[in-house]
């Protein structure tokens, strides 16, 4: 039990601190790296919830692919100095505002409780919940349609990316003319 708590608090704090780092860092690269940290910490928390597949997928997809691209972009932009003070007053307002929002929501959560609302009865988590075979099974049975549909979605995304990124052969002459 103690170990469990320790684990949770360690990664929970890590996630929170890294999250703060994302917002407060002055350099985008630090923000990005903090975000990587957050992702990893959250993946660790998923592990604790026995959602192993989710944990690994989180790291492989977000840390290993998405964030790498972001970091790439930042490095290629070569931003050394950020423009202006990152915490201008309006941003402070934003922070205060978000905090208030969360506060309101927490208050409502409390009201939920005080009204005696406990949510619908939920079945207890099965022992193999979140493990790879379980996830795989539901992907190919219950969620077959979304799973297949995502494939089409990705096709659309690939086509879109190609359309936007490809240099049309006709465009070259005009560009050269512009350069002249």
């Amino acid at each position, binding site marked *: 039990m103690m170990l469990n708590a320790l684990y949770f608090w360690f990664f929970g704090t890590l996630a929170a601190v890294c999250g703060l780092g994302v917002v407060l860092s002055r350099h985008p690269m630090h923000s990005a790296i903090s975000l990587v940290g957050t992702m990893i910490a959250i993946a660790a928390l998923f592990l604790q919830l026995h959602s192993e597949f989710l944990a690994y997928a989180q790291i492989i997809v977000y840390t290993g692919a998405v964030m790498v691209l972001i970091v790439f972009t930042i490095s290629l932009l070569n931003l050394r100095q950020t423009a202006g003070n990152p915490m201008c007053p309006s941003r402070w307002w934003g922070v205060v505002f978000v905090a208030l929002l969360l506060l309101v*929501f927490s208050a*409502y*959560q409390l*009201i*939920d409780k005080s*009204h*005696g*609302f406990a*949510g*619908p009865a*939920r079945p207890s988590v099965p022992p193999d919940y979140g493990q790879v*075979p379980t996830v795989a*099974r539901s992907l*190919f*049975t*219950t*969620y*077959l*349609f*979304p799973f297949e*549909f*995502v494939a*089409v*979605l990705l*096709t*659309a*995304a690939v*086509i*879109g*990316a*190609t*359309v*936007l990124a490809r240099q*049309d052969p*006709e*465009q070259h002459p*005009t560009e050269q003319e512009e350069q002249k």
Partner: protein
Amino acid sequence: MNNFAVPILGIQGIMPELLLSLAAVLILLLEMTAGDREGHGALSLSVAGLILAFIATFGADGKQVFSSLLVNDNLSALLDRVFLMAAFLVTLVSRPYLANYGLAKGEFFVLLLLATVGMMVMGAAMDFITMFLGLEMLSLSLYVLAGFFKKDVLSGEAAFKYFILGAFATGFLVFGMAFVFGALGTTNFAAMAHTLSAGSPPFPSVPTLLFGLALILAGLGFKISLVPFHTWVPDVYTGAPTPVTALIATGSKAAGFAALVRIFMITFPGSFQFWGAAFWWLALLTMIVGNLFALVQVEIKRMFAYSSVANGGYLAMAFLSHSDVGIKALLFYLFAYTFMTVGVFGVVSLAGRRERLLISEYAGLSRENPFLAAVMSLFLLSLAGMPGTAGFFGKFYLFAGAVRSGYLGLALVGILTTILSFYYYLRVIVYMYMRESEMPREALELAGSGRTALVLAAAGVLILGCFPNLIWISIEQVF
């Protein structure tokens, strides 16, 4: 290991979607192998796919397929027809339009078809997961289509803004879905409705649920451009290639409404006392702001962008009526709105060799191209709600529904803003017919498919305006 049960497939339930996807893939293959430079093959394949899908929508049997993630009922079939018609007309308009810009590429049609698939999945979704995926499919394709003119700065800007803000709004949507899931423990609409009806204390008032619903409304409000979630509309509508604008204004909007109907009117009608007021305010604001801002626009696409916003407000009014009346009025207006909006944007896309004309540049169109001017006038009159056109009955049903549910004030605002809208719609007609053009305008060669699309849309407007019952009969079958 491999002993799990093969799921009930229900392929017949997604036949239209399947056919469209197939057409999209075939176009890609054609593009790859044959190098279809003129886009003829792509056009004919898309048209064939759309028509086949349209026919397939008549196979609706009311069954839920794929583990209740999708439903194949009359509502979804009807919505499918709206989407397919919008896509069909847009496809036809796109051909001459793209040819004009030397961009007749198969990818355009592929993305258009895939966007339509996304809409149809949204319309048929019975689960947050499928709904979200449909939305993403739709949005993703449209983001790219909006930026299809890579040489054009405004087109790129449109794509960028649409993408950033769309992602932002989607964030709210997913957040909201998560909260609803948290409150009810399921993502399936039918299961949610069941939980609600079985719950005690009364579930509809659970704050977590309402919190989620509010966020969902905001997220989808972006898609259907309700004020204040409409800010992207003018820039994106203006920047995007005009046929794409037409699709965003009709199909995408209709899909957003479809999702709202499924969630709010069918799944959570019991919480009306909580979300009703939200719709009231949104509809009010949208009608006023949309019409008011449209008044002062000088660029025609921008004007229609605001006009489209305003129309979203009228549509939102339907949510205040009692479920079945509201849904029917909404569906009817969606049909009418699709015809006339695709119509105006179709004319806009074919009226000049240059995009983004000013309203004053439409002067003298009636002489140069009487056909375009005539159909444009028809669409404008319909948008303004002239009797005898589809727009009249659309508005009539909506306003009547609102009045009957006791929202007289809102209906009055609707009527007043409609009167306001006459001003800016008629201004275009005045320019077309009563002013001489100051500079010669290079008119587009009005190719066959573009003309066909406009004639079809005009026929739709007139038929719905004279025989509203033709559609109304199938709308009545929704319930």
